[in-house]
């Protein structure tokens, strides 16, 4: 039986102030198990990014609990949350957020450097992971010398090099063409095959459905439905 690596219960969260204040999450619960690739789908403004920020311990919810690897995060201060992130969570962003002045290898190594890992070991690990994402030959390239798809693969390498249990991706294919999007998703699906690791991908790209083990639909701050990847596919093709 695979373990629950991330669990959220009854998350409520507000954003903005005064008249602009909105309830972005209105009681969201979900659990991610090792070995899963879960898609989070929903219209723009439905609260996907907010949910991801809270699950990734970048933000503390107004109400509700988050447990990472069984540990409740509510009581943790900013530094303890940072520690949790660097040890257990990997992020992938739509706009990659690579460091423009560092080459691919150093960008990946950064995830280990912030954990205080020795440079030599970190370099070897970074090279190995870059090879896994198919960029072994581009490790000395700067981000601007790489295509969008390649940059996103470097970002994926950075997210997984530290053996994070939870990979959170916010529209990772949003800026990519179909071929590159497919390649990135295939890579994420591959990563999720590791039974110790769960991948949650926010997207509104239906081409990703074949890769999903589960699809969660969110609308207006609430989870409205959930189904297996196969069911979702059928719905899309029937439509």
């Amino acid at each position, binding site marked *: 039986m695979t373990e629950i690596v991330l669990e959220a219960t009854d998350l409520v969260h507000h954003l903005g102030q005064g008249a602009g204040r909105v309830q972005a999450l209105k009681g969201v619960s979900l659990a991610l198990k090792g070995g899963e690739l879960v898609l989070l789908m929903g219209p723009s403004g439905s609260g996907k990014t907010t949910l991801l920020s809270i699950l990734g311990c970048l933000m503390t919810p107004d109400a509700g609990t988050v447990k990472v690897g069984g540990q409740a995060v509510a009581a943790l201060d900013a530094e303890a949350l940072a520690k949790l992130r660097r040890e257990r969570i990997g992020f992938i962003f739509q706009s990659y957020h690579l460091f423009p002045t560092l080459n691919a290898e150093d960008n990946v190594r950064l995830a280990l450097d912030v*954990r205080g890992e020795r440079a030599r070991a970190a370099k070897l690990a970074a090279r190995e992971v870059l090879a896994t994402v198919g960029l072994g030959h581009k490790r000395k390239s700067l981000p601007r010398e790489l295509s969008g798809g390649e940059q996103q693969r470097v970002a994926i390498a950075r997210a997984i090099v530290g053996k994070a249990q939870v990979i959170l991706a916010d529209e990772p294919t949003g800026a990519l063409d179909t071929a590159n999007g497919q390649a990135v998703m295939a890579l994420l699906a591959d990563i999720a095959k590791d039974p110790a690791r769960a991948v949650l991908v926010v997207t509104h790209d239906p081409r990703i459905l074949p890769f999903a083990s589960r699809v969660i639909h969110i609308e207006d701050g609430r989870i409205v439905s959930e189904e297996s990847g196969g069911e979702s596919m059928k719905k899309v093709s029937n439509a």
Partner: protein
Amino acid sequence: MSLQFRLASRNLFHDRLRFIATIIGIIFSIVLVTVQMGLYVGFRLMVTTMIDHAPAELWIMPVGTKCFEDPSLLDERQRFRALAVPGVAEATPLVIGYAQWRLPQGTTTPVFVVGSELRGLGLHPWNVVEGRLDDLSVPGAVAIDQTYFERLGITGVEQAAELRDRKVQVMAVTKGIRSFTTTPYVFTDVERARSFTGIAPNKASYLLVKLAPGADLWTVQQAVRANLADVEVLTAAEFASRSRSFWLFGTGAGAALFAGALLGLIVGTVIVAQTLYSSTKDHINEFATLRAIGSTSRYIYTVIIWQALLSAIVGFAGAAAIGKIVAAATAESALPVIMTPLLTVALFVLTLTMCIGSAIAAIVKVMRIDPTLVFSR
């Protein structure tokens, strides 16, 4: 090479214009501080030149004398009372004062006369490059420094001029005896000095005291004090220190130099703080990413501090080079900018401190960083 250092240096060199602005700011600031502090060091040395070159171990002076140039007088007969004190080997009068020097072509200029006994204990000119010290015993003989040739209308030894309507003849020329007041020194015999300055024959500015071999400075100082009325008795070091405090702090010259240095520091801090802050703002997405992937705050501060330190090192190198040039250019002037190794080290530490202090604004900026920034485009 650590990744933090690499990030810092790339952040810094990435924006060349800003980097150049930072370095120019640091150089400007530190050169200003260097010049002010170098002047301070130079001034400190200059104001005690005469005391440092006098062979006296004790100085007897009128009560309340503030510095070497102080015009107050004491009774020369005190000399015999001083000589009666056990441990005093010699006590000789020194006369100082301003006088009008009349150039051969008729115009006049003020000079500062220093007269002492030519044989025995006296404040004699040093660094004689023309003529001989012994020739000062010739009637009307004086020694001047070659720096002031033009001002005094002299081009070499054996030339004549007038001091207070008395004919004088330059019999010795020195090199490098300059006054920070820019009034030329004229060395001569004590009697002649009195006549040039109008000081009465039984008066003197100081009594220079030399101790007998083996005598204890402090003991003799106390004994002379006890035996003489209406005078102060200071060791050479005490007198130098009193002179320095007067010129540096009594006149406000020192305070002005420090104020200039402080101004330089403030300007430098503002410039470096401003450029570091704007660089941090430009890279805020990267810092947010660092924070999102779980770096400690310290990790991020280290990157910023490295940026500050790197700027400091490059800026200091530039400032030190310019400082050296200024020191060389002013070495022969009345008020040289003097760079001692200690001052150089102190300036380097100051530069580092200034740059790290400047990083505070940038650090406060990243302290408030919101890691969810990474989700916005």
